[in-house]
């Protein structure tokens, strides 16, 4: 029951740090399914997504001290992941081409198109939805240009807030909103094209 010697204090500090580190790693690993889900749709193939997730965790575990406890760990991991993705040069891309379609097509467009292609009179919305196959959805999303897809994947697939998506991608929140809006329209126009080819 005495004053701690410097060594005792030091070893207590080390033990504390070790515990914090274990906790950090456990929490990060618990989020890996969610991190992978987003990664898989940010890049083109399963292999790329797996590499990217693995590198993300390697870097996260190396730089765990930079994480501020109590802040959003999932967003922190995704920030690392998107930076790694940029480093790999995958995003060297022209400014996304403006399609003539969006802007003119309203938000009811996809429903109207699918419904008109359904034989039934006045079908319910589940029947209309069933016209979209899983493969066509995966392809339609992959065909959305990168800049729009990144936002779409983070917000609509990863369920990140606008603010988190802005931080992860290092773009203003207004840009997140406009890209999300455009991205959803492009996705719906792709879906309509795949389900009901013109």
């Amino acid at each position: 029951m005495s004053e701690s010697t410097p060594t005792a204090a030091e070893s207590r500090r080390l033990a504390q740090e070790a515990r914090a580190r274990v906790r950090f790693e456990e929490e990060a690993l618990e989020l890996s399914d969610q991190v992978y889900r987003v990664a898989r749709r940010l890049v083109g193939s399963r292999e790329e997504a797996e590499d990217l997730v693995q590198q993300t965790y390697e870097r996260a575990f190396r730089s765990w001290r930079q994480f501020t406890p109590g802040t959003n760990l999932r967003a922190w991991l995704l920030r690392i992941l998107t930076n790694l993705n940029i480093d790999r040069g995958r995003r060297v891309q022209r400014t996304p081409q403006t399609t003539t379609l969006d802007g003119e097509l309203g938000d009811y467009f996809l429903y109207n198109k699918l419904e008109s292609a359904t034989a039934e009179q006045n079908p319910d919305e589940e029947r209309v939805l069933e016209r979209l196959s899983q493969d066509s959805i995966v392809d339609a999303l992959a065909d959305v240009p990168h800049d729009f897809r990144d936002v779409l994947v983070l917000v609509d697939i990863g369920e990140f807030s606008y603010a988190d998506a802005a931080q992860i991608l290092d773009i203003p929140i207004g840009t997140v909103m406009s890209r999300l809006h455009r991205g959803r329209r492009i996705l719906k126009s792709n879906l309509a094209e795949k389900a009901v080819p013109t």
Partner: protein
Amino acid sequence: MIEDPCERCEEMMQPYLDGTLSDAEVLEAERHLEGCTWCAKRYRFEERLRHYVRVAVTEPMSAELKAKLAALRTPLA
């Protein structure tokens, strides 16, 4: 100029589902949806579509990758 109420409702759909409308706008949209099955159906479709897309594009992580990530942990001293 008087705007078509269904067009107005269509414009409010995304922000409505995102929860970014003001209280007054939410009320306006809901009042319209109560009386308009045409728009109501399209709102329900959109809500289901978002969920449907999320599920359709979700691919489970492989057990191999999961094991690789777990192996990155710092060994306990």
